[in-house]
């Protein structure tokens, strides 16, 4: 899976290179790619704008990513969520687990505000 990353100040923004899904069949791929980009303690914004489908394995991967970041000093915030993915988050009540922002800029700014 192709991911792109960009540092904005102290925040790492990770986005998907192309439109697609995050599901059981490619979730291990996603996890490996993400881990390659991260340093421990990173503050990360995950841009989900290009993810148009997500199943619970995909959600699980995002939760696991958040957990592994917060084990250090880091944190995961989400941005740019499509309607479908938001519904999936709400079905599992996981919207209560993450800070979700409408745009990447807002998410980056929120780290600065802390």
């Amino acid at each position, binding site marked *: 899976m192709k991911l792109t990353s960009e540092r904005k100040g102290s925040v790492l923004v990770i986005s998907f290179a192309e439109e697609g899904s995050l599901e*059981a069949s490619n979730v291990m791929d996603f996890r490996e790619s993400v881990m390659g980009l991260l340093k421990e303690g990173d503050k990360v914004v995950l841009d989900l704008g290009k993810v148009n489908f997500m199943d619970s394995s995909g959600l699980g991967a995002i939760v696991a990513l958040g957990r592994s970041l917060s084990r250090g000093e880091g944190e995961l915030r989400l941005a740019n969520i499509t309607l479908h993915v938001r519904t999936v988050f709400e079905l599992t009540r*996981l919207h209560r687990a993450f800070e979700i922002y409408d745009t990447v800029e807002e998410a980056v700014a929120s780290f600065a505000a802390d």
Partner: protein
Amino acid sequence: MGHLAFWPQSWQVALGASALTFLVIAAVVLLTRLGRLRRRWALEGKRPRLRDWTALFEGLPRALREDHELHMRVFRCLGLATLFFGAYYLTWRYSRSINWDALWFSIPLLLAETYSFVGAALFVFTLWRQSWREPPPPPENATVDVFITCYNEPPEVVRRTAEAAIKIRYPHKTYILDDGRREAIRRIAEEVGCGYITRVDNRHAKAGNINNALEVTNGEFILVLDADMIPEPDILDRTLGYFRDEKVAFVQTPQRFYNVPPGDPFDANAPLFYGPILRGKDAWNAAFFCGTNAVLRREALIRMGLFYYVEDMERALKKALTDAWAAVERARWLMERSRGVVELARVRERFERARAAIRKARRALKEGETLSKVISLTGEAVPHLDSLRQSLQRVREDLLAMAADLKAVAQSGEEPGASEARRRLEELAPATERCEQAVRVVQEAAEEVRRTVNIEVTPMATISLTEDLATSVRLHRLGWKSVYHDQVLARGLAPEDLGSTLKQRLRWAQGTLQVFLRERALIKRGLTLAQRLHYFTTLYGYFYFFAAVIYFLWPPIYLLTEIPPVRAYSAEFFWRIVPYLAFNQLMFEFIGWGIPTWRGRQYFQGLFPVWIRALVSVLSGRKLTFHVTPKTRQEGIYLGLIRPQLAICCLTVLGILWGIVKLALGWSREFAGILTNVFWGLYNLLMLSAVVRAAVWRPKERKVQFELEEARAAHPR
């Protein structure tokens, strides 16, 4: 009520209602068969002659067992009769028969009888409707992972299971999940040609093992097999079809054991459970996952794990923060008591910082901030707790150093310094002890908080020792469906000695009680009324020990003291109790027709000390550990494990002998009472005999392979 002219006498009720029941049963049987026969004749276009009608009675016993509809109807008649006579007996017991002179004896017995009656009602409810299913054809192109969980089972056992798993016909991938991290098992996986998955620790035992494997595999469906459970090649073909219904989360199949000797001395096969009971639960969508021989839908597991992630996490955070707050307060109180002895200024500052950090996290949790925020705030409290602990440790070291100095002065014997030093030493000792306690308390709190912050998402619920039951409750609460497919599709090894059997039963009991008592599964939202009732029935069974103890003690107490628990062993008593017990027995015999259920009932009563231990351990809240049930034979005689049962046996024999002696020598005239209780004493001895026999039972050496072939031949599918 005798003054009403038309009110029937108890003997009239007993005989009349019994006769009526049998008439109704006969009518039900004939009408059901008549319906079948006429449909068949209609299909064949046959006009029946007089002698054709004998077909009504042909193969009747077999039809009663195997014609499901007929079987259930007759069972319902017997069940209703049992409940009618039970209610008739109990109303009389409550209104007329209590022996007020011996309340300590008569009240517990009455409660036990009430408990049994409610239990009988729940049993009738459980079996009222049963499902016999035929699976739809399996979907094409489904992806399936087969998980073989193992820990310390002999490598040969694991190899046989892995080899059989590879041979399952439906396309799949096989993995051995080795929590023992053994080189021998890794080699077996390589040789057999299946995957091998391990993890760094063994957290949450079997459930954790499966969770870990879920993360590194991606099949839509997962077949879970214990290390010794040898699957049939068609296990997936027979179960995957049910998943065509998108709401089905898991399909459970029975557990059978191929090393069980004739008579099944340890009731390993539990045919009453893996049969009528699970079929009954299945009819109400309340069958549960039993840990092995089941296929699960990954999506359901993961979604459940995620759904409960927030709930579990919030609860765990709340608990950790509350505990940490209490710990800090307690540590502060301990330190403040040493105010005059120790310099507290610096410690106080640390206390304030730790308190502030915890307070902040608690407020965030209370105000409904997102979980990630609360987690990070909670995480921030950890360094504060650590530095508090460090500064408390420094105080402690100072105190110890001071104590050493004072000791030197005291021992020097130079007055007046020495006696002053002794006085201060006495002051110092409790302060040091309190300080040590404070260090410990703060350290434990810091560890709990750290652990909580690191909780993982766990698809397989890890709250209790029987991860399977907890998982079922959670899936049902989220509206998923379950299926029990009543066909043996995998066979394994049962424990072969009483010690291991008792350990296993204890773990099941503890796990069940834990799910209900700690999780409050019965009162939470999401379950249907029928599901609640089915789960309640399972829980209810584990409280049987209370009735069992009373039933076991009652005959010897009566025989030795002649204090009757009922007012009199009169004709009235017998006319009410005999039909009740007879129909109860008949109902069980009917259900057990063709399947050996007797052993299960013996164990249910005979293992009362195990149920008591389970309840005590769960209520006391001590941490329970998961013991893997040994699947290899542990030689020995286990009479030491059943001391309470042996004591009751001795007491009962003593009572029976004494009763007979009294009657024979004419020392007592309570013929009816003594004979009744001799009968009950003998019945109890029969009940307990299974456990005693199991304790001294020794297996014969036999080749396992041979046993498996034999088991397959004996029960063709």
